[in-house]
């Protein structure tokens, strides 16, 4: 009984983090937090980003999708710090057709593993359309950094792309013989979209996988400007530092407790929390706080691990790294309060500047822009993209650059915010057309 209640916490965690929801952040000195003032996205975009595609608008999906979990031990893995023992193997997920078929590889978004809700929808759609589907974590996911990164310091587009490319080869080479692959395409969403394009560009010179087509869904154009926007969103809606997080937690606790007290429920379960979330998430500021907090929590792990590997000493003392059994609570609290900019200036930049004598901070930022492969994106007809007009990780200039570079090979939806259009009938139909080379459609 108890185990049942205690292990059912993960949905709780998801709701809590996706649900800064209940909060009504009102930093006294800040302007009214409408999306327009924050300058990131309109109301509809924020709402779609949090709630995703409504189930009634979801493309029709197959009744059953087989799934295998693959754990890979990669030969180039760096020594695993003892406290990260559970991340030693790369975990990916594979759905095999029982006949020869093209393979679609899907790459997850920032900090996420290869089995997220977004991935499940894409997997189902692709499997239903006849693809074998291999879903992989983001190179910024802790399990990837530890098991598959050659640096331990994630976030460099080209370096991460090479690690990802190597991991793909290793996994595909060791799939069961009965799996017959006729062609390889790659799909990535959010940061995974940029990763997908980079991987294809690497493959174009190395030819080890012969990747055919790539679809980027809501990709960033500049990594650091996108995360900078999310840092600002955090500061504007939650407030700087740990104090803001604590205030948010207190509001959330009180709201859930009051809803629970008023209900007849005897157990605080997932359905109740989902209902509570829907009941309390109302304003743009709520949505913004939810997005900012979710994103921040995803970066905390990457920051911690990067510091540990690079021995920069920002979070932990390289001479006395934390041991198995040590409490990490204070470290976690400190990290939650740190913006992503700190990761760049104190861990990422020092690490890479030491290894690339010609590099400077601005050149590192520039090398993490999608325009490092402008020529390929413009001239190779096998790169495609789907994004939205109100995606909060892109500014107008970046969106225009994508449209200019990809021409007819990008579609920009009016609605959806960041990833809120994934799984929608139109999005799925367009993605499948892009992957099969029937885009742009003849009538256009």
């Amino acid at each position, binding site marked *: *009984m*108890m*185990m*049942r209640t*205690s*292990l059912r916490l*993960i949905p709780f*965690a998801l709701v*809590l983090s996706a649900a800064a929801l209940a909060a009504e952040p009102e930093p006294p000195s800040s302007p009214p937090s409408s999306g327009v003032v924050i300058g990131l996205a309109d109301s509809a975009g924020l709402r779609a980003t949090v709630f995703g595609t*409504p*189930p009634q608008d979801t493309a029709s999906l*197959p009744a*059953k*999708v*087989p*799934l*295998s*979990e*693959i*754990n*890979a031990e990669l*030969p180039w893995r760096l020594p695993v710090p003892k406290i*990260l023992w*559970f*991340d030693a193997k790369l975990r990916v*997920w*594979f*759905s095999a057709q029982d006949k020869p078929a093209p393979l679609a590889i899907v790459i997850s978004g920032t900090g996420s*593993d290869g*089995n997220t809700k977004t991935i*499940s929808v894409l*997997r*189902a759609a692709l499997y239903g359309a006849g693809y074998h589907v291999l879903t992989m*974590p983001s190179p910024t996911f*802790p399990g*990837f950094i*530890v098991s598959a990164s050659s640096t331990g310091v994630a976030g460099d587009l080209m370096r991460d792309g090479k690690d990802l490319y190597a991991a793909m080869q290793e996994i595909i080479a*060791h*799939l069961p013989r009965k799996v017959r692959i006729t062609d390889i395409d790659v799909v990535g969403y959010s940061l995974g979209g940029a990763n997908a394009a980079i991987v294809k560009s690497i493959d174009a010179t190395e030819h080890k996988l012969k990747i055919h087509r790539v679809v980027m869904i809501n990709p960033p154009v500049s990594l650091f400007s996108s995360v900078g926007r999310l840092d600002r969103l955090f500061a504007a809606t939650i407030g700087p530092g740990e104090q803001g997080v604590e205030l948010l*937690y*207190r509001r959330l*606790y*009180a709201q*859930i*407790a009051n809803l*629970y*007290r*008023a209900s007849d*429920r*005897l*157990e605080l379960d997932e359905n109740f929390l*989902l209902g509570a979330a*829907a*009941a309390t998430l109302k304003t743009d500021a709520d949505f913004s706080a939810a997005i900012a907090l979710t994103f921040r929590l995803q970066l*905390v*792990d990457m920051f*911690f691990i990067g510091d540990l590997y690079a021995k920069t000493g920002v979070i932990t003392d390289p001479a006395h790294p934390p041991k198995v*059994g040590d409490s*990490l609570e204070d470290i*976690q609290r400190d990290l939650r309060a740190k913006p992503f900019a700190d990761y760049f200036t104190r861990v990422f930049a020092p690490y890479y500047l030491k290894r690339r004598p010609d590099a400077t901070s601005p050149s590192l930022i520039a090398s993490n822009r999608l325009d490092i492969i402008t020529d390929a994106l413009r001239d190779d007809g096998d790169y495609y993209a789907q994004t939205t007009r109100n995606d909060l990780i892109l500014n107008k200039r970046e969106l225009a650059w994508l449209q200019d570079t990809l021409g007819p090979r990008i579609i920009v939806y009016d609605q959806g915010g960041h990833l809120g259009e994934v799984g929608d009938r139109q999005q799925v139909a367009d993605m499948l057309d892009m992957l099969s080379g029937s885009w742009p459609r003849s009538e256009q």
Partner: protein
Amino acid sequence: MRMGLLVALLAGVLEGCASQVLSIRTAPDQTPAADNAAAAANAAAFAEAAAAESAAGPAEPHDVPPPVTPADAPPMYTYDPWERLNRFTYRFNARFDEAIFLPVADTYRRTPRPIRAGIHNFFDNLAEIDSVINYTLQWRLKYGWRSFARLAINSTIGIGGLLDVATKLKLPGEPTGFATTLAKWGMHPGPYLVIPLLGPSTLRDGVGFLADYGAEYGINVVGLYRGGVSWGLGTVNAIDQRANIDFRYYSGGSPFEYETIRFLYVRRRLIEDEGLHAKEPVKKAPVDVPAGK
């Protein structure tokens, strides 16, 4: 016989190791179409409930207990004086789950759904006995009667508990236990406690669990709780429970999973306590005392 079970379990674990680089394990099939239909139904139900609520207008003032304010929320720190031991146990649980518990549960998930449902209902029905006792101890007789009715209906018409007829008769199951009784009597959760194999808990909930087990052992209904049969039954019960929990240790890869789970578990129990004492004024949480103490 127990040895034989262990060997079978280990064989199940080792099966499927294909090459040295990769190990491939079949996971339960995904059912996207059904999941989406369920999500649509859920969303519709929420919308309906919200519409009904706004149509009904605000509740009568005297029905509404004084609200919990943000200042009443417990601190973010959690009382965990046995942290070193707890972390050790957490790690053990994670490894046990990965190597044995989860693969066995995944295998079990491949048995036909009606069989699994029957097994699940059977154990739920047995647990109603403990619920009847504890609802009575909590002096929540309405719920006690409901549990009793469920037990009577499902044990007879439901063929010894294999079918959950009572839920279809609008008597849904809501189990309780001695941990909740202690909470109702005013006991705080106490120190955080990770129990071997069972997972996150608190001292109070752990005591409650032992008392529930003791009650079942003492009553020993139809002789199921003592002797050889109890081992087999306990194992199946554990596997059934594990198969119904959508949780994977370290699936998020986070170095801070112990902290996150501890935080969420204790907050959740504290909110449930608030619900148990909803008719009473909110107790002010002391400012500097970690949550749970």
